[in-house]
């Protein structure tokens, strides 16, 4: 199954940005180290991906680094979709 980066990006914007927040987010924007997503709220993104792609991402792999950009998230998901 191809990883839909736009869908991940849309979820990030909907879930983490306030309505009046006009921060521009691309596939390479640093979400966690850039302070857009805190590592604590990352959990809902992980659950969203697990449901969407019917996968289990072990906590050891769900690191702030792996979740830092839409590109790195897509790479992580792809690894588990293939597995």
């Amino acid at each position, binding site marked *: 199954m191809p990883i839909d980066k736009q869908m991940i990006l849309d979820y990030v914007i909907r879930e983490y940005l*306030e309505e009046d927040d006009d921060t521009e987010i691309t596939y390479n924007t640093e979400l966690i180290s850039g302070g857009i997503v805190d590592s604590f709220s990352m959990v809902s993104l992980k659950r969203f991906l697990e449901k969407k792609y019917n996968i289990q991402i072990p906590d050891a792999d769900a690191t702030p680094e792996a979740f830092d950009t839409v590109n790195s998230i897509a790479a992580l998901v792809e690894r588990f979709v293939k597995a």
Partner: protein
Amino acid sequence: MAFSTTIRQAYQDELAGLRTAGLFKEERYILGPQGADIEVEFPAGADGRPVINFCANNYLGLSSHPDVVAAARRGLETHGYGLSSVRFICGTQDIHRKLEKRLTEFLETEDTLLFPSCMDANAGCFEAILGEEDVMIADRLVHASIVDGMRLCKAMRDTYKHSDMGHLRDKLIEHQDKRIRMIITDGVFSMDGDLAKLDEIVALAEEYNAMVFLDDSHASGFIGKTGRGTHEHCGVMGKIDVITTTMGKGLGGASGGCVSGRRELVEMCRQRARPYLFSNTVAPMIVAGTLKVLDLVFASTERRDRLEANTSYWRRGLTEMGLDLKQGESPIVPVMLYNAKLAQDMARDLFAEGIYVVGFFFPVVPQGAARIRTQLSAAHTQAHLDKGLAAFRKVAGKYGILGKGKREIMEMYGK
């Protein structure tokens, strides 16, 4: 393992990194008791400088109140200095249980358990009352101690956008398959100073069968008509399942905290909360002092009324001179500056003007949301407030930000 030169160097490099990033925290020494007028030694070794304190949690001005000090001294004489024990071995005196009963009356709950601090109460209570089959749904701006407590708990964690009731509703719907849903919020948010929409939260909790957890540390003693807290202000007393709060802010400012709420949940904390089970009891003189604080708060609303009036005056003054404030009703009044260096520079200049405030910036607040957090006290007089306002006008004028909004300040100083 020896503390080798290599290891020492690694720590020195890390500390140097904090300095370079502007994240290194330095203590400032107060020469005397806490109050509105204090003398501060900063930097270390400098002569003491008299300043007006606008950054303490001394909301009711009781930190050095003579009646509280006298009660603590009497407690020291009648109940000793320390208990040398955790509560459940031999660390509970008659006055500990008396204070728990008084706090239960004050918060209008079913029962209360003292903790060494509210940090400990928050760190311990989730693990004690929730399990793997449950979910914790927290406002994204809750205090760090709640985040730590949630991390220690096996229940699923989720968050909702700050005070966004639509988002909270979505989360409650999403988690209907869980055994227990617990909504977690601060009463007054410590960095923004706004109040939780507790009436709406309780309505959602009833609609979606959830429990409500409230940390009212920045509210107990002064929010609400008789100072009982955010649940009084929002008209939902008796409907909050767990309240944690501190005696280290408005209620005397020494130390100690509590979990208060449904009898069974408090009892679970007594049986299972690790910070309660494995750390020393609250010192007797602090218990005695806090009992006096509660007597004063029960006897009169004069202090919380004065705090409310001071807050209105301060907010109006800062707004009229053209500063950009976070809106709210609490005595936490953040002056928004957006840029970290600007916040630090202005705090330094205000200190030179005799006004003690602190700049906050990432990671304590989000990127691009740097601010000076001012805090009011019932101990502030009109003269204190006027001097503070005059200093803000002078310093903000120097940096050219009077009458400027977020966009303009960010254009001038960057994010």
